[in-house]
């Protein structure tokens, strides 16, 4: 870890003004990703601005239109166990609780979760080329071991996946990210927050320099009756997803009136395909229809030597998870497959 100075921001404006200094300034929230990366010397900073003592944005509050605002500095665990989230957005609770470990969820913040970096093995190995770590150096994963890598939206510049679980649910729920920066406040629709790698894989998202995430808004529709989060991984818990699926269904009897399906572990951002969700509207909630939706979702997927299995795995996970969404009461702890 390089040597750095440490400052505490008293409020968001204070933090933003610190970030304008002539130095490499980074915001420090839970630290669970930033400190880890700094210990490996994969990230550095001259100044860490601790945003944990800012008194605003530490609550979960109801919005006038029936939605919910998640303060950016609320911890992941507190969000997952919040009674409003559990009652109206159980899909989000499930996804958060499928991520990391209880200790990490007690430290990690909602803002920080959106900004965690990839777990690509080569990104973590400073001795090998990686376009995300060092633009223009090349991608070691494409010719390396790709088990955990992406199958959708990749380019020859980067095939890494974005590892968050929470964000898969936020994508399915059509969340909106609230941001404050040197130029003022703005809102970013969740679908526009993270980026595909393109030829600039070093840029994970559309946050501008100095901007702080202050909150995440959830629209009123929470899919609290029929929802499921399924996470498939090499170890049953405390491991990143190979494939994960967040499903929210709205049903009228057997007929689907609205559907949301987002995938994790397969792309540089949570993956949603509007055409698949439109296809399901008005159809019966059946394995056959979910299978067809799954085909639409993974259209264009490209597998590499070691991760081609993810294409079929993703399809089956989508079908299984949509079926699980019909019976949320029978789901198992830790986003495991259930009948």
């Amino acid at each position: 870890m390089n040597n750095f100075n440490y400052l505490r921001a008293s409020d968001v404006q204070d933090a933003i003004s610190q970030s304008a200094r002539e130095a490499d300034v980074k915001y420090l929230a839970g630290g669970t990703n930033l400190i880890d990366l700094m210990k490996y010397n994969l990230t550095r900073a001259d100044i860490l601005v601790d945003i944990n003592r800012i008194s605003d944005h530490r609550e979960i509050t109801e919005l006038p239109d029936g939605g919910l605002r998640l303060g950016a500095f609320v911890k992941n665990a507190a969000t997952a166990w919040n009674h409003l989230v559990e009652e109206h957005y159980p899909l989000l609770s499930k996804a958060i609780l499928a991520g990391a470990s209880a200790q990490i969820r007690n430290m990690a913040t909602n803002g920080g979760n959106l900004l965690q970096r990839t777990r690509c093995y080569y990104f973590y190995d400073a001795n090998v080329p990686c376009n995300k770590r060092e633009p223009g150096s090349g991608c070691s994963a494409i010719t390396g071991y790709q088990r955990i890598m992406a199958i959708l939206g990749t380019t020859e510049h980067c095939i890494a996946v974005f590892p968050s679980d929470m964000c898969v649910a936020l994508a399915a729920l059509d969340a909106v990210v609230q941001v404050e920066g040197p130029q003022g406040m703005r809102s970013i629709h969740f679908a526009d927050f993270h980026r595909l790698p393109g030829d600039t894989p070093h840029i994970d998202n559309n946050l501008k320099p100095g901007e702080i995430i202050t909150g995440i808004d959830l629209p009123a529709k929470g899919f609290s009756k029929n929802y499921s989060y399924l996470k498939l991984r090499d170890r049953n818990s405390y491991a990143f997803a190979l494939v994960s699926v967040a499903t929210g269904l709205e049903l009228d009897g057997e007929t689907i009136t609205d559907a949301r399906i987002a995938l994790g572990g397969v792309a540089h951002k949570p993956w949603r395909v509007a055409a698949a969700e439109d296809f399901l509207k008005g159809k019966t909630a059946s394995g056959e229809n979910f299978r067809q939706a799954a085909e639409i979702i993974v259209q264009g997927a490209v597998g590499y030597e070691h991760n081609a299995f993810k294409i079929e795995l993703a399809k089956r996970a989508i079908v299984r998870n949509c079926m699980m969404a019909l019976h949320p009461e029978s789901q198992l702890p830790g986003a495991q497959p259930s009948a």
Partner: protein
Amino acid sequence: MTTDYPDMQAETVENFTPQKVTLTVNQKPVELEVLPWVSLLDGLRDYAGLTGTKKGCDHGQCGACTVLCDGERILSCLTLAVMNDGSEITTIEGIAQEGELHPLQKAFIEHDAFQCGYCTPGQICSAIGMLNEGKAKSREEVKELMSGNLCRCGANTNIIDAIMEVKNQLAHE
């Protein structure tokens, strides 16, 4: 601008002043003078002399460094000592009361819930945090909510047995 460290200005980026961190560790006040990059784990072990908390991976992947911070279980390797100024920390050294072992310590001994013992302080602090949270009902849920503590000796089944026993005792109180 107001920070708790008014002596630190942009011009002094090269000047690294140790900072005073006041903690309550195991109910006793502890003052550390640490540079900003010292983790809470190193602060406890190397500065406060409390070596009960273990460093397994130093990267958030094993849970050996688990302590309680204001009653909640956290990983002391992924937080800086300076971030925790003013916090109340409980480590494995602080859980026995008046010479009497904590019920989890007793249960770990009874159930043979360790071999080398390296993961044990983290397991026990984590289990205390988990029981405080009150979310786990079944054995399956306990396993899931204890998954952040790895035991490389393979004492896991006995660890869960020990925790279940204490959990059931609490339920009967």
